[in-house]
C-alpha cells in the first residue's frame, strides 16, 4: 500500500474540469441505469411471485436479490461520486469508485456462475443423450 512518504508528496494527478464533468455525467447515467434496474426487478418480482410455484418463486427471489445488489452498487457509485465532487471529498470519491469496482466484481461472479450452470446443463444433456443412445 501507500507509504507515508508517498502521501506527503503532492500528487501530480488530479481531475481537470473536463474529466470532472465526464465522471460526473457518467455517474448520472449510472444512476439512471440503476433506477431502470430497480423498476425491472420490481416488475419481474411482482409478475412471477403471484403466479409461480415454490421453486419458481425461490429462483426468482435469488435472481432479483442479485440484480438488486448490483443495482445498489451502481446507484451508490453514481451518488457517492457526484457527492465527492460536489463536496470535494476524497473519501466519497473513493467509496464511489469502490462501488463501481464491486459492481464489476459481482457481474464477473454472476457470469462465472452462469457459465458453470450452462456447462453442467450441457454435460447432463450430453450424458442423457449418450445413455439414451446406449439404451
Amino acid at each position, binding site marked *: *500500500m*501507500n507509504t507515508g512518504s*508517498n*502521501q506527503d508528496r*503532492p*500528487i*501530480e*494527478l*488530479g*481531475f*481537470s*474540469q*473536463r*474529466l*470532472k464533468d*465526464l*465522471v460526473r*455525467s*457518467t455517474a448520472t*447515467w*449510472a444512476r*439512471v*441505469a440503476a433506477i*431502470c*434496474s430497480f*423498476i*425491472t426487478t420490481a*416488475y419481474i418480482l411482482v409478475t412471477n411471485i403471484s403466479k409461480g410455484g415454490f421453486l419458481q418463486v425461490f429462483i426468482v427471489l435469488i435472481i432479483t436479490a442479485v440484480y438488486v445488489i448490483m443495482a445498489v452498487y451502481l446507484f451508490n457509485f453514481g451518488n457517492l461520486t457526484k457527492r*465527492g*465532487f460536489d463536496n*470535494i471529498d*476524497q473519501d466519497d*470519491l*473513493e467509496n464511489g*469508485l*469502490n462501488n*463501481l*469496482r464491486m459492481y*464489476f*466484481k459481482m*457481474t*464477473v461472479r454472476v*457470469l*462465472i456462475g*452462469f*457459465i458453470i450452470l*450452462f456447462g453442467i446443463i*450441457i454435460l447432463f444433456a450430453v450424458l442423457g443423450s449418450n445413455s439414451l443412445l446406449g439404451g
Partner: protein
Amino acid sequence: MEEIEQEGLLDESMFDVNMSPSVIYSLSETCRWARRLVYIAAGAILAILIIYIADWEALSRQLYLENETASMILIIIAIFFGGVYIAFLALLFIFSGRVKEGLQQKDLQKVEHGFMSLKVYFIISVFFSMLIVISFVLQLINIITS
C-alpha cells in the same frame, strides 16, 4: 518572466479535486475488474458460439421457422444483439485500458478517453433498459384495459 512561467505551470498542475493515492488505487482496481469482465464475457460468448457451430444442424433447425422471412428476421435480430454485446465489451475494454494507461503515464487525456467510453456504455445500457421498462408499461396497460 520565469516567475510567470512557473506560475503558469503551477496553475496547470493545480486541480479542483486531486487524486489521492487511495482514489488512484480504487480506479486501477476498477479497471482491473472491468478487464476481467471483458475477458470472461468474451470467453462465454465464444464458448456458446463454438457449441452452436459444433451442433450446426440444431442451430439451423432453430433458425428455420415457418417461412424464410421469419428466419431472416431472427438472424438479423441475433446479429444486432451480437453487435450490441461486442460494442459493450469493446467500450469496457477501452475504459479499462485507457484509464490504466492514463494513470500509469499520468496522462489525463487517456483517462478522459476511458471515462468517455464508460459513459457511452452506460448510455447504451440505459437505452436498452428504457426499452424494457416501456415494454413493461405497455404490458401493464394491456392487462388493465383487457
